[in-house]
């Protein structure tokens, strides 16, 4: 396996300024997300999981350290360049779905392609195909409020994957769903990870869910306290990559 890592973080920190007080949310995190990886990110509330996800997805910039997404150093990119990087390499899935209201499923899924200059017809075709892959081929023109929670999250997953990203970042994707629906969504994510080789990084509070991942990263107080990949010795590969 000599493929370049999808995301590489070296000693990344993130400090929020809150009314003049510095709040360190991340304090030196180093990790590598390999292509096709399946990572569960666990840790107590407030440990910095979401903050890390935002950084890994290029939605936010680190206060310190080095962050490389898809081979590009985030610190050197302008805002439009970073937006383009997000569009091309990252897919986000949020706990709260974040679908556009009063907008059909197919148009929601097609949204990322708008910012990529894909023609309207092609957008619809690709969005419809993607909805088919998440099992919603019969719900193309439903609005979010006409869909169940599980269906809404599947629309969001289709939207995250319609651009063929290398990494899918899912922050508690089943957090708003009941256990049965949640399990189905989880299965879908795992299937897509297996099928298309998109790396999956998922924040979860559920130990059982975390146990199914190929790799587990545990956080506490803004630092990584355990990384199962490191235990098995594969961080050495990442460290070697970073040093090269």
């Amino acid at each position: 396996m000599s493929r370049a890592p999808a995301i590489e973080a070296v000693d990344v920190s993130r400090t929020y300024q809150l009314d003049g007080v510095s709040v360190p949310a991340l304090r030196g995190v180093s990790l590598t997300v390999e292509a096709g990886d399946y990572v569960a990110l666990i840790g107590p509330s407030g440990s910095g999981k979401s903050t890390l996800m935002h950084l890994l997805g290029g939605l936010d910039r680190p206060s310190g350290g080095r962050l490389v997404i898809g081979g590009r150093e985030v610190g050197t990119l302008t805002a439009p360049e970073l937006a383009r990087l997000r569009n091309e390499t990252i897919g986000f899935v949020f706990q709260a779905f974040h679908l556009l209201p009063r907008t059909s499923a197919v148009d929601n899924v097609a949204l990322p392609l708008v910012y990529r200059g894909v023609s309207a017809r092609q957008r619809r075709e690709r969005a419809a195909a993607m909805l088919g892959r998440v099992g919603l081929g019969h719900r193309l023109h439903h609005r979010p409020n006409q869909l169940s929670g599980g269906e809404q999250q599947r629309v969001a997953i289709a939207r995250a994957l319609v651009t063929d990203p290398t990494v899918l970042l899912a922050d508690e994707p089943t957090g708003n769903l009941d256990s049965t629906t949640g399990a189905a969504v989880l299965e879908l994510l795992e299937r897509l990870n297996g099928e298309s080789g998109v790396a999956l990084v998922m924040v979860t509070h559920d130990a059982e869910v975390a146990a199914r991942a190929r790799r587990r990263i545990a956080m506490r107080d803004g630092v990584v306290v355990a990384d199962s990949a490191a235990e098995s010795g594969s961080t050495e590969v990442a460290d070697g990559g970073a040093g090269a």
Partner: protein
Amino acid sequence: MRVAEAWRVAWDALRANRMRSALTMLGVVIGVASVVLLVAIGTGTKQRVEQQVEGLGSNLLLVVPGRLDVGSAPALSPLTLQDVDAVGRVVGDPSRVAVTVASGATVRAGNREDFTTVQGVLETTPTVFAREVARGRYLTGSDVDTGRRVAVLGDSVARSLFPDREAVGQQLNVAGVRFRVIGVFTPLGQSLGVDRDDEVHVPVTAAQRLYGTQRVDAIAVKAPDRERIDELGERIVAELNGRHPGTEFSAVTQEQILGVLGDILGILTGVLAAIAGISLLVGGVGVSNIMLVSVRERTREIGLRKAVGARPRDIGVQFLLEAVLLTSAGGLTGMALGVGGALLVAAVSPIPAAVTWWSLALAFGVSAAVGIIFGVVPAQRAGRLDPVVALRSE
């Protein structure tokens, strides 16, 4: 993102929020409609007045005592028929000089009566003022010289006194004195709510006897040529000032009257447009307000769009285009309403209304500009939103 795509995104966002979009437009609709309608009324009134002044006949010179200025009170006239003869000598052609001594009077025929303006005039009136007689004949020189009690009726008077009979040849009672109807004028119609056919012409000599006066109110002259009309006016004024040392006279041309009226009506139109412009401005502020609310309301949408790859500029342009689309659509709707309103006003009321292209272009341009000006701040705010904060907002 390409420009056509940006319009589409903005359009889709507006359609997804129809109710809010419609309410936002309302202020602009009202503003533009009132600009178009009020300017149309102002312009229509001005045009109507100009037509009427021009309709008095060309090269007209009105000679009145006192100064003809906006706001100055009309002076009591010291003019007599001797002055009229003198003016005729200055002009060199008495057939170009007309006079009037007018008063309101009750006229009767049988058991019908009407209150109207009875004007004492010379036989020259049709030449000077371009009036036409529809039936019968007008006054002659001998009617005037002998003070014959004959009358020419305006169309309205004729129809009100003799609804079922031909007026010409009938007897008429003016303020207790019997007159014979010799003619009926061709109708002139309404102007500014005034019925221009509500008048009776009698020989000036008969009118003076009727009113117990030697005076005439005003003298009108049809100048022989346009170039020297001002000079002629000055000579007439000099002659009259010489004859009446205590009084100042003025001679005004149609152009001067038009100028004064045009100034007044121009100011009126300007004031109306300004009032309407203010309402358009208020509409613009409303757009800005609602766009700001919209940015806040759609914070999560903005965060999401950024998460999937929208650049700050894409978001800013989207909101700016939304504002421009809203105000332009509002502008077009307002234009349609304004034009419709103007046509309605012109059709069902005596108020004239003339829609002008410049007012349409101005109203539309201003509404689009309002969209840009008042859309910039919300658009910038939307573009600069931190996506992480935006996605966290509830």
